[in-house]
């Protein structure tokens, strides 16, 4: 408690508080961007109290909470925040927020989807090229001295002309599609609903999309419907040369079944930034050269983080000034 007193001594104690249960990476790296004349941060993680006790003691009048994947906003948490009116996440994904409960109680939610699209798409394309052209594996080959010892590396697979199925054509999916077109790929997509103004062929199920694609790029949100949507059936239909890239959420893919398919050579390769149980990654993948792994980093550039922090602060300032939120999540 003393810690909090010190921190708010030099600021007006009338500033409304924004609860932060655990700091999102963007706060850890760019805290200076969160200093505002309109609010102050209430940092739950700095207290020695158990969370529910802390919230009961200190968060009774908190109207806004800043969260991330590491600090989900569950119905239980919401229950301990009787004044809560706004949930802000510094991420694009909102699967760690009980949206149903928020909607029921009229709690607004904002996310940071738009600012991450370019970096996310860049990483998706980077992973796809890496898997097809074996960039990381070839880099290891060179660094291990195998080029003079064993000669030419194995041939890769051409990106141009490939049929790439994009799963989810929101901000990320659209940005990925635009890039892939420049490489001469044919873009196909699946999404909850068909988008009329989009030039790419629409497939109403992921299975049909996979059957007609050489590669799949997962760009959709994690919901009850999309959990384990990519399973053995979909992967088998993608085929032995098929490549899957996931920059969305690990749980969209049935990870156990995907690992089995990879180990057995039933699909051609995978580029994965996300996993079902981060930071744990199935160890069977570590020995595979047709897999490229990334530690949930696809949006981790300074530009994305600065933009995300500005968006979070912008949303908070708008909220506390009774102005329209900048990036509200629209319930469907």
């Amino acid at each position: 408690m003393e810690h909090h007193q010190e921190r708010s001594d030099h600021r007006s104690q009338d500033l409304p508080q924004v609860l932060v249960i655990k700091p999102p990476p963007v706060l850890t790296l760019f805290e200076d961007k969160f200093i505002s004349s309109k609010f102050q941060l209430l940092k739950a993680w700095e207290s020695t109290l158990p969370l529910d006790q802390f919230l009961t003691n200190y968060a009774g009048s908190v109207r806004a909470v800043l969260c991330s994947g590491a600090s989900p906003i569950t119905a239980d948490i919401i229950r301990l925040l009787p004044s809560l009116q706004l949930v802000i996440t510094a991420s694009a994904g909102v699967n760690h927020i009980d949206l149903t409960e928020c909607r029921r109680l009229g709690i607004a939610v904002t996310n940071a989807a738009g600012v991450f699209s370019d970096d996310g798409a860049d990483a998706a394309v980077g992973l796809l090229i890496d898997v097809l052209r074996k960039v990381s594996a070839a880099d290891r080959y060179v660094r291990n001295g195998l080029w003079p010892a064993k000669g030419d590396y194995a041939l890769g697979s051409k990106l141009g002309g490939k049929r790439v199925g994009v799963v989810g054509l929101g901000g990320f999916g659209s940005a990925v599609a635009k890039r892939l077109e420049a490489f001469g790929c044919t873009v196909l997509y699946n999404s909850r609903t068909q988008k009329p103004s989009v030039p790419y062929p629409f497939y109403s199920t992921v299975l049909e999309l996979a059957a007609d694609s050489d590669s799949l790029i997962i760009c959709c949100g994690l919901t009850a419907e999309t959990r384990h949507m990519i399973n053995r059936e979909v992967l088998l239909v993608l085929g032995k040369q098929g490549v899957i890239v996931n920059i969305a959420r690990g749980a969209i893919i049935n990870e156990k079944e995907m690992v089995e398919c990879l180990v057995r050579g039933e699909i051609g390769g995978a580029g994965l930034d996300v996993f079902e149980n981060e930071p744990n990654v199935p160890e069977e993948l570590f020995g595979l050269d047709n897999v490229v792994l990334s530690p949930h980093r696809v949006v981790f550039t300074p530009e994305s983080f600065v933009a995300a922090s500005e968006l979070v602060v912008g949303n908070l300032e708008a909220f506390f000034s009774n102005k329209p939120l900048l990036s509200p999540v629209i319930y469907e």
Partner: protein
Amino acid sequence: MNNTCVLVTCPMFTYLEQELETRFNLFKLWDHSSSKAEFFNNYSSSIKAVVGNTKVGADAKLIDSLPNLEIVASYSVGLDKIDLDKCKQRGIKVTNTPDVLTDDVADLAIGLALAVLRKVCVCDQFVRSGNWINGDFGLATKFSGKSVGIVGLGRIGSAIAKRAEAFQCPISYHSRSKKPNTNYKYYLNIVDLAANCEILVVACALTEETHHIVNRKVIDALGPKGFLINIARGAHVDEPELVSALLEGRLGGAGLDVFENEPEPPEQLFALDNVVLVPHVGSDTGETSKAMADLVISNLEAHFKGKPLLTPVI
């Protein structure tokens, strides 16, 4: 045609060798490495065609030893391993494999840039080594929107530009002369190009003029926040200067497919996190290798049937 003697200079691609064998009387130079003199004694005057590549082409010595050589068909687009002057003098035709490999090389250029800036290989290693359990990885560098400077705006350079534009990268270039039908900004001087871009991509042909075109001055102009991508020829870059710039942090990073002394890239680079090194794989996909091989075969068949060459250089 089955009696026509064709010499292939080094192992390139099994499919190519097989296709050559079904059509011609094929000699593999490396089968005779222990008895070269004898081989040339017996067969040199029969050989009418040479198939070479980026490792072993057709230099003056080889051409001089083949008095009845009519055509050199290179399994590459680059011609730096062929003595073109000698071929011109002797009236020997030369073909290469343009266009069919443009996409793959351009794809790799962008792939290398993404790999270096976004630390794809480093992240992969981070996860494989089990380090993610111990803590998070840091930030990488954004690729979209970075200014890309291309050295040589030929087929491959233009293809790289087109791809980079989809990432909203402003494009500028340097070449021998300004290209008429483009809106990209032109720099007469490569140092100015390097000073005004964040990612410099080498995509020109290797000639006497472009040897070491990326030198200390260019590297300094590119600077500690700049990146060099080379998918052209190792000799385009003053490699010792590049290595010391990377070791000393005077250059932000590099993605390299080619080196001055293949297959031995400078070992001092192996420990660096801001470089990506691949073993001359620019056109190494199954699809493109086959297309290149088919083009070599088609050029040879056209020549020996008295038909126009498909992709003549001279």
